[in-house]
């Protein structure tokens, strides 16, 4: 098999808030009836986390589930486990209307970490990032500057972002510039 390389090959920008490309991540777009118990069971079985409610994501390390839309969930697994996971999904949902696609190589993952991480995102995305509205577990699909992105909090000081691989360089540069631009001080710090 070819040697898979992530979009930015682990590029890191150090500072008060660090931006770091997180390397390869296995991602499966799964469309279907999210209320279906078999679908829920196979998702939770693959990732070891609870099935997320609307607008939420549950992630532990590399693995997790994210609610993308009323009929779509993003299944995150280790990059070398994707083929295996797809097989399990196909087997579990055999005969049921669903779509499961490996999108790992179409995406990039970045982790932004630091005391004013909310400020960094608030400069770039038109969403409410106040701790009352955006806390660990909340999953937002919006945009960073001009490109689509989805992000959620890993903990009070770190946010994980996914975007398309083709715009990874742009998204990284945006986040880096917003981080270097410093604190705004609008949000209470976690």
């Amino acid at each position: 098999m070819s040697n898979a390389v992530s979009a930015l090959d682990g590029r890191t920008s150090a500072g008060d808030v660090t931006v770091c490309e997180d390397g390869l991540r296995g991602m499966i777009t799964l469309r279907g009836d999210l209320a279906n118990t078999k679908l829920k069971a196979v998702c939770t079985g693959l990732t070891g986390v609870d099935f997320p409610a609307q607008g939420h994501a549950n992630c532990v390390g590399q693995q997790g589930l994210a609610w993308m839309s009323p009929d779509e969930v993003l299944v995150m697994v280790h990059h070398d486990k994707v083929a295996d996971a797809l097989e399990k999904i196909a087997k579990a949902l055999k005969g049921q209307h669903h779509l499961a696609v490996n999108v790992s190589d179409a995406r990039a993952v970045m982790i932004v970490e630091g005391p004013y991480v909310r400020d960094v995102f608030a400069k770039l995305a038109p969403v409410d990032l106040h701790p009352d509205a955006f806390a660990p577990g909340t999953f937002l699909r919006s945009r960073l500057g001009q490109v689509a992105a989805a992000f959620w909090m890993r903990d009070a000081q770190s946010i994980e972002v996914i975007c398309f691989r083709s715009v990874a360089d742009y998204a990284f540069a945006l986040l880096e510039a917003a981080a270097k631009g410093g604190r705004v001080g609008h949000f209470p710090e976690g």
Partner: protein
Amino acid sequence: MLTLHCPNCGRDVDETDLHGGGEAHLKRFGPGSSDKEFEDYLFMRENPKGVHFERWHHSFGCGKWFLAARCTNTLEVFGTYPAQTLEPPKEIMDKISGARPGWSWGAFK
């Protein structure tokens, strides 16, 4: 700037996360209809100063369509509702009637 509630994600989203999809509640006239009906279906649109019903696509979010009732004059939003409806829900109609007595839009009033 508009902030609309996406009924598919249950979130209030900024206008820049959305894409306008034109007039809502269009009735399609295809094969078998008269030339006049087909022309009206293709080209004739409401262009009100006041109450308006529109389609919106949550393109930077969940990628689903929804419908919105708002005022083009004041940008007041009366409500949003799922795209899979043939007419606005009663509570939104009542709200518009309360705020804009005597309003009408297409077949609705």
